[in-house]
């Protein structure tokens, strides 16, 4: 890999109590690339994603975002960097249930200091692109799982992040909804030039992505490009 990584973890170790989750795992993402992070349960995939996102600070090793250290920063600064430069999608969306879909999608822009009217217009454009603008003013409990998850994708991308991280984003969806969510995430990330890392155990999800990284027992064991 010759281009400069936009997000990277180098020789990362992480332990929860007596359980060793990561044992010197390394992974780099370059701008615009689309990567599947695979491996059996307990292999360390989600721990790796949490370290890369700066949600968890590794015991050892280094995480960098756009060339600057991330793991050594205080929690408040890591949160700010995450808000500015990353978008994250979890398996169950994690939208705020008291807000409507569009209010959820507007959140990152407003937290970054954007005006409400501009945030609303940008969010609505994105919801339209994902074909869920007609349910924009409904709360998450009043829409389908697939619609809520597409809104979560919109929220992750609305502020044009450098990196999108997704942890089993289609794991709770039926095949048709999963396909819509995945297509939305892959095409929007590509349009924005954002790097995309998807943690998945699903080969059909991985088939949408260009590089496959496999973890086992807390380390990266294989990395392979998928030719198109």
């Amino acid at each position, binding site marked *: 890999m010759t281009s400069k990584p936009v997000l990277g973890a180098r020789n990362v170790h992480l332990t929860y109590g007596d359980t060793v989750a990561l044992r010197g795992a390394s992974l780099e993402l370059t701008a615009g690339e689309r990567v599947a992070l695979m491996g059996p349960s307990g292999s360390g995939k989600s721990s790796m994603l949490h370290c890369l996102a700066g949600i968890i600070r590794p015991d050892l090793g280094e995480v960098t975002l756009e060339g600057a250290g991330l793991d050594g920063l205080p929690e408040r600064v890591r949160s700010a960097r995450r808000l500015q430069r990353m978008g994250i999608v979890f398996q169950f969306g994690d939208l705020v249930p008291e807000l409507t879909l569009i209010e959820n999608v507007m959140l990152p822009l407003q937290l970054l200091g954007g005006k409400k009217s501009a945030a609303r217009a940008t969010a609505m454009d994105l919801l339209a692109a994902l074909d869920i603008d007609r349910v924009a003013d409904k709360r998450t409990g009043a829409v389908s799982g697939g619609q809520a998850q597409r809104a979560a994708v919109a929220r992750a991308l609305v502020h044009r992040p450098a990196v999108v991280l997704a942890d089993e984003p289609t794991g709770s969806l039926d095949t048709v909804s999963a396909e819509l969510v995945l297509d939305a995430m892959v095409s929007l990330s590509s349009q924005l030039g954002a790097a995309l890392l998807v943690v998945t155990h699903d080969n*059909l999800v991985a088939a949408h992505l260009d590089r496959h990284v496999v973890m086992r027992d807390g380390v990266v064991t294989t990395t*392979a490009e998928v030719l198109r």
Partner: protein
Amino acid sequence: MPTSHTLLALLEREPAHGYTLKRQYDERFAQTRPLAFGQVYASLARFEKQGWACVTDVVAGEGPERKRYRITPEGVEVVDTWVFEPQSPGVFSTSSLFARVSVALMSGRSAQTVLANQRATHLVRMRELTALRKTADPGGVLAISYELAHLDADLRWIAESGERLDKVRDGIAGEKR
């Protein structure tokens, strides 16, 4: 022979010439490789010989005679048996992939490379199929989903086998001693 039985089943819908049968087969069943005319005409000749189909009329033209075939009650029975008889699960354990991995392990070649290459090839095909599925008609979606499910099963086996190769290799080395 699934291809010839499928041709016979197509004939069940209405009498047809060899050319029409080939076109219908290619539209519905030939995902990547169209059927050869020779195979269609050889199958029709065999159906006639076995009493599964008969010639209804012959049209003479500039080229060779064009025979139209109709399925017989015996042919319908053959289709019935073929459709409803479960396939022996044994066919799934005789794949070339399993044999190649085994040979690699026995001969000291890299079984990991065999698995990795097959994994990459399967994923490329999976990507092609998921793209095709978006525009396929309902019959096409059924065929594509079938192939995707089998690719997925292979990929799961590849992932699982990757973890076991060392043990299997050790076992084979033990047998040699």
